[in-house]
């Protein structure tokens, strides 16, 4: 199974990650994101239900996604984040930017 998969449905795009997001995986995420029809995306869903860990590189990529999507009037939703991930997002105040579901 691929570590990263994407899905586009209408103006919603989903990036699903199934491994720890270290620096290497973060770059792969960026590549996957760049392949999306960014001008049509209003909602980017990040499915982190299988993500055990995210490093600062990964977080940096999320913010990159946020800037791109929000500039088009879109939003980012993080789904399935573990308790550790949720706490991390809250402490870094990223929950002000992303909707954590």
């Amino acid at each position, binding site marked *: 199974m691929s570590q990263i998969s994407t899905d586009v449905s209408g103006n919603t795009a989903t990036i699903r990650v199934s491994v720890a997001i270290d620096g290497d995986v973060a770059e792969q995420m960026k590549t996957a994101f760049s392949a999306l029809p960014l001008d049509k995306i209003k909602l980017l869903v990040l499915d982190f239900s299988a993500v055990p860990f995210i490093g600062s590189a990964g977080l940096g990529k999320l913010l*990159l996604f946020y800037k791109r999507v929000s500039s088009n009037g879109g939003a980012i939703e993080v789904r399935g984040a573990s308790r550790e991930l949720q706490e991390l997002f809250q402490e870094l*105040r990223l929950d002000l930017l992303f909707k954590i579901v």
Partner: protein
Amino acid sequence: MEQAWSDRLRRLTAAAPGIAYEFRRNPDGSYCLPFASDRMYEFFGIPIELLAEDAQHAFNRVHPEDLPELMRSIQRSERTMAPWRHEFRLRHQKGHYLWFLGQSIPTKDPDGGITWRGFLLDVTEFRKLSETLRDRDRFLANLLESLPVGVVVIRKQDERVVLINAAGAAMVSHSAEQLLNMRCRDVLCGGRLSKHCPFGESASEAAHQDELLLVQPDGTPIPVLRQFRTYSIPGDQDYYLMVFTDIRERKRLETALRDSESRYRELADSIPALVWISGPDGACVDFNRTWLEFRGRTLEQEKEDGWLEGVHPDDRERVTATYRNALQARAPFVMTYRLLRHDGVYRWIEDHGVPRLDTEGNFLGYAGGCMDITDRQEAQAYLEAVMAGVQAGVFVSDARTDILIDVNNEAARLAEQPRDSLVGRSWRDIITRDRGSDHPGAEERGWDGQIVTPKLHLRRVRVRETVSAVGGRDILVQSAMDITDLHHLLSSQQVDIALARQLLDDVVRPMPRHVNLGRDLSLFVDARVWPCAKAGGDHALVRNFGDLIGSPLTALALCDQSGHEVNCVLRGIYTTLTLDTILRGSRRTLQDRLELFNSLLELSGVFREEDFVTGWFGDIDHDTGILTYAACGHPPAFLIREGQVALLPDAGTPGNNGPCGFLAGTAFTTAALRLLPGDRVIAFTDGLAEMPYRNRKQRFTAPMLARLVQAIIDKNPDLPVSELTDVLLATITTFSGESVGGPNGDNSSADDVSILAFEIESLTQARQWILHPGSDRELAQSVTAIARELVPLWEKQGIRSPEFRLRSVLEEGLSNIWIHGHRKSPDIPIRVRAWVRNDCVLELAGAGEGFEPERVPDPRLPDRILADSGRGIFMIRRAADFLDWFDAGRAFRAAFRRPAAPAIPVPDPMEIMTFPVK
């Protein structure tokens, strides 16, 4: 002539009493009555002529029971020709029987017959009387024998016993038969005349009663009461009638009564109370010695109503009325009055009277006891005056039930309720205690609280309370000072003890946890401070000057600021800042720094005259491993080395000093030793040693605590110093009945409790990885490999979320070193080490220019939230429980605190307390 004699004879026989008769046995054996006086006919109603022919008519009138013996008596007289005499019954013509005595003299007739001539006398009444007398004799004899007293009748003439009953005989251990006709003196006195013998000198008395001893044949004397009288029987002799009553039981009771009275008297006279007894009429009949000595009068003077003369004139009428009313009702009573003492001073007396009854419930009078309550009255009056005058609200309650016994006027004012309405209620209904507002004190406890009045006014109070045993029960005395105005002032000035504490904590932070000493050694430092009621002044200060060129050292200090209120905490801040400044400002020796520290504190003006700070101070030279230390008015620290505990400093050795901030210019001394791998050191404030005092009234001396630590080490030789601290604290808090260091960091004891512990950890056995990553992927693979190895181990150590936290540190730390430090060069090695001892520690060390981690901006700042990078250091700090940077930011140690170890066997502190001090 013959007729005349016959007539004369008839007249004589008619006049004579009884019945004159002739009774003949004919030669043929038949019987007849040739002659009978007229009474015969009067009695039987049988014509004389018939009787003259045949006496059978008379025999027919004999009682059937008497006839056989009558005939036998006649036949005996026939044979012997002796005078005949017999008593028998004859039936009167009216049908009833009468007793007759027949007497006659037989003569032989010429024809061979025998004629008896005599009289029949009516003895019916006589016989009745005789039977009556016989019955009475039998009755008297039985009565005599049944008497429990000895009855003896003695013939005066010859002193012989003529009558003695069984009880009397038993008294002299003989039978009545044996004693009859014995001489009195032989019976009663064993042959000797006793002085009370009636035959002795006092025998002239007609009636007498005395007590004497009857001597038994075996010599045993029996005390008896003897009553005797003489009596004379006309025509007979004089006799003595003696009645002996065995009075052994009476003597025993008399003795017992005497003993009882003697004991009563002894008891009554020994009682410190004034005791009196009255009779049924209420008149006093007895007073004990205490009463008489109190009054300075005799019993005769006090008896009856004499005692009333001592009652104060103003109290006399009331006392008399009270006593009289009680006497009428025969009820107990209590009265208080003034009684004149022998020295002319009136004393207040509390008199309790109780009715006396005999075994049948008859009223015998009163028994009374009195106590001099003058002192109590005066004390009560004094207390009333004090309670009225004291400026704080005083609440006095039963410590067990919390029910108020008394309050003063100020308490009533605080509560805005009358005093009477407060007494009888729980004090907790009046005063509500603030949580966590305890103020420590060894003998007196204090806390803050509030009173909400019925009108919903809120009063803030500071309460001091003590418990004292009074009259067999524990009394809680609380004084409540109205601090409402002060509280408002403090609130308005926003003086906040918690804020002051937080400031102090911020000043002392950050404190190193794992200091790199080089040479594969690490200094682990664990500083724990539990303030008392969150307002204590204890503080620990640890500063790592490891990056100092030439003399890298770590400075440690554990200080105890005098006092406990907010100003104490503020002074603690000042103390710490001063110490910190001195540390940072120069490389003076510890001795120099202490002397400068002392002088600065004393001269600063921040310390009042009574303020001071005690502490244990230590410098660890990273290069030499030498620990230089000093205790300033402070308990020594403990060094645990190779299973032995030593004091640092020991008593009377260099390093012992007075407190700091007390006297400027004081000289200080230090001591030093070289630390070795495995050395463990524990310093503590006196709150730990004093902890048992509040509940157990015991303290640990330093040697006692050392023995306790030794006992723990003996059972668990290789205990890391952090766990040793846990066990030591748990042992002492459990022993003390206190709660210190729980999840909320509470401290229920009376003082701050602080422990500064450190250990020289050897890293020779640490796991190690040397990395040369050439790409992000290789770096990521290294992270994964190391995490894969360490996560299970740390999970086993109980580390929370080990994978996330470990990966965070590895990912960010390695990235930081490789990207920023090594510029992604694969040639520069990155060293990763991990070990478990006090914490689970992960060390990352690289090369490069280094950096100052504290200068990295906080990614949470508004202008940093959207930044693509800059979160790595934050995430490392977030993941680890402790983070120590060294080598100018090129390396760090991230420590993960292990959860508290399971309970291990601990020694009994009581054994330590009671073990003789070496």
